[in-house]
């Protein structure tokens, strides 16, 4: 067996598998971290998923973790696990750019809360990951760093805005990553790249130290290869944070311990009219509908009951756009006036926010309330909703129909408006060879239920185990 095969054996491990080996001292954090850096060196010149590699600090952390574990001071399932973070999470002493020239030289003096939480749990931070500029837009050659590529086909987007998180996790250039989600930016890349990504409930995870896109919509969350790994990462980053007043003092269950492998008695709502209706929507791919319907059959086989439900207010999901652009403009207004040349293609999007009135913003918030109430009422009757994650597979980079791509986020944004937890899990492949995702939405602060459905589904299927061919 050559070194590449040895590296693959280590890098293909899930967090759960690696944690067991680290705890029993059958692999060391140093071996694991070195294997990932070799793999990154081998493949990332094609994928561009990393914008900053932290080799020195990661190896130093790995050595410390190794000593701690050898000394019997094992901290838990993330101890010694190589993780990477989207480049909008502030990292002390390490450049944090949000893929923008505005922040090209920004070196924070503190860690964001979730990065600090990961470090406290013993995770090894491999580096900072590519994204679309300020978490908006779709990736563009005019941005600060090259756009990350989709490991399943380099001509296709990995999804935005957590593009590097999707690409690196899918290509096994890290064991898990952090993304952020304002209108679907964790779930779209998860769907496009055949990984698992969860947007937690609003208020579940601290946004402190994370470059904002829209304060009342942003959610930080893990992107991993399995729901079980997402549970392990979420465990470490969830909880109230005195530095972020939007976080709530809600109990954090032991997510890994509450995972189920059957779904007896679980009630699944399926909003067919908005998410599955091929006659009504312009861009919904028939193969996506067929694939998610097959996944629903698997969930039924696992014991779940299906109920068709209706969500008419989702026609007004564009309230998300109005709120997002208004809040984004408030954050960027000064720089848009004084340093317009430092913005890339996202500048035009931000300027739209300057054309919105207070009345527009308030009306959008009122519509948001209608959508939230409708979802809240519905969640009294069902435990989760299941939908396709996106109406179509990852677009090509040269697809100029930006309107079509943007519109796809209407499947994801309702759950930013409502603050409900939502996860994308792999559920099959299109005839074009690209992955398809299934979205699982839970009641507020019931990430445990969402993760359980994903885990039970992954226990019964192998879509999440499919790996992209990286022999470019």
């Amino acid at each position, binding site marked *: 067996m050559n070194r590449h095969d040895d590296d693959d054996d280590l890098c293909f491990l899930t967090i759960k598998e690696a944690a067991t080996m680290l705890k029993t001292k059958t692999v060391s954090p140093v071996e694991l971290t070195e294997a990932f850096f070799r793999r990154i060196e081998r493949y990332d010149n094609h994928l561009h998923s990393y914008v900053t590699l932290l080799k020195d600090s990661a190896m130093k952390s790995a050595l410390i973790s190794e000593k701690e574990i050898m000394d019997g001071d094992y901290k838990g399932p993330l101890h010694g696990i190589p993780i990477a973070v989207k480049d909008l999470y502030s990292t002390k002493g390490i450049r944090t750019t949000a893929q923008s020239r505005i922040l090209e030289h920004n070196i924070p003096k503190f860690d964001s809360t979730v990065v600090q939480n990961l470090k406290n749990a013993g995770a090894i931070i491999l580096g900072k990951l590519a994204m679309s500029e300020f978490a908006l837009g779709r990736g563009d050659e005019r941005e600060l760093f090259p756009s990350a590529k989709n490991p399943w086909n380099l001509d296709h987007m990995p999804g935005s805005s957590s593009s590097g998180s999707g690409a690196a996790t899918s290509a096994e250039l890290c064991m898990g990553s952090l993304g952020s989600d304002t209108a679907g930016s964790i779930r779209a890349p998860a769907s496009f790249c055949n990984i698992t990504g969860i947007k937690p*409930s609003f208020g579940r995870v601290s946004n402190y130290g994370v470059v904002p896109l829209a304060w009342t919509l942003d959610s930080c969350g893990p992107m991993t290869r399995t729901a079980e790994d997402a549970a392990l990462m979420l465990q470490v980053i969830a909880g109230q944070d005195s530095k972020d007043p939007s976080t709530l003092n809600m109990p954090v269950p032991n997510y890994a311990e509450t995972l189920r492998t059957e779904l007896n008695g679980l009630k699944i709502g399926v909003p067919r009219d908005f998410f599955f209706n091929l006659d009504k929507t312009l861009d919904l791919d028939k193969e996506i509908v067929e694939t998610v319907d097959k996944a629903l059959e698997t969930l039924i086989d696992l014991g779940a009951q299906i109920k068709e439900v209706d969500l008419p207010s989702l026609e007004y999901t564009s309230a998300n756009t109005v709120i997002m652009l208004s809040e984004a403009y408030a954050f960027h207004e000064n720089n848009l006036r004084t340093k317009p040349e430092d913005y890339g293609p996202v500048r035009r999007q931000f300027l739209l926010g300057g054309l919105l009135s207070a009345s527009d913003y308030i009306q959008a918030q009122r519509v948001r309330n209608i959508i939230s109430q409708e979802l809240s009422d519905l969640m009294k009757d069902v435990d989760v909703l299941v939908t396709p994650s996106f109406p179509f597979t990852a677009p090509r980079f040269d697809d100029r129909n930006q309107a079509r791509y943007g519109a796809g986020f209407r499947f994801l944004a309702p759950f930013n408006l409502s603050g409900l937890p939502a996860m994308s899990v792999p559920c099959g492949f299109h005839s074009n060879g690209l992955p398809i995702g299934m979205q699982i939405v839970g009641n507020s602060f019931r990430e445990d239920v969402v993760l359980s459905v994903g885990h039970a589904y992954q226990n019964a299927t192998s879509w999440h185990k499919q790996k992209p061919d990286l022999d470019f």
Partner: protein
Amino acid sequence: MVASDLGYNMNGNDIPPLDIEDFRSLVQDADLNISEEDLPKLLKAYEPLKRQLQALHELQLEDTPSATRFFPKGVED
């Protein structure tokens, strides 16, 4: 994502396109720092957003407030 396009599939309404001079006034009122070259590009991006705004404002929301709560059922009371 491309923000202005989220309402792409929304039940639209047939409103006339905004005249470039009207749009110029809107941009000037908002005191946006953009060039003459950028003006028509921004207008193109604004058109779908304008349609979405009109649809949102036409909704009959009666006394629906703007505050949004994120508590799970049973916790807020």
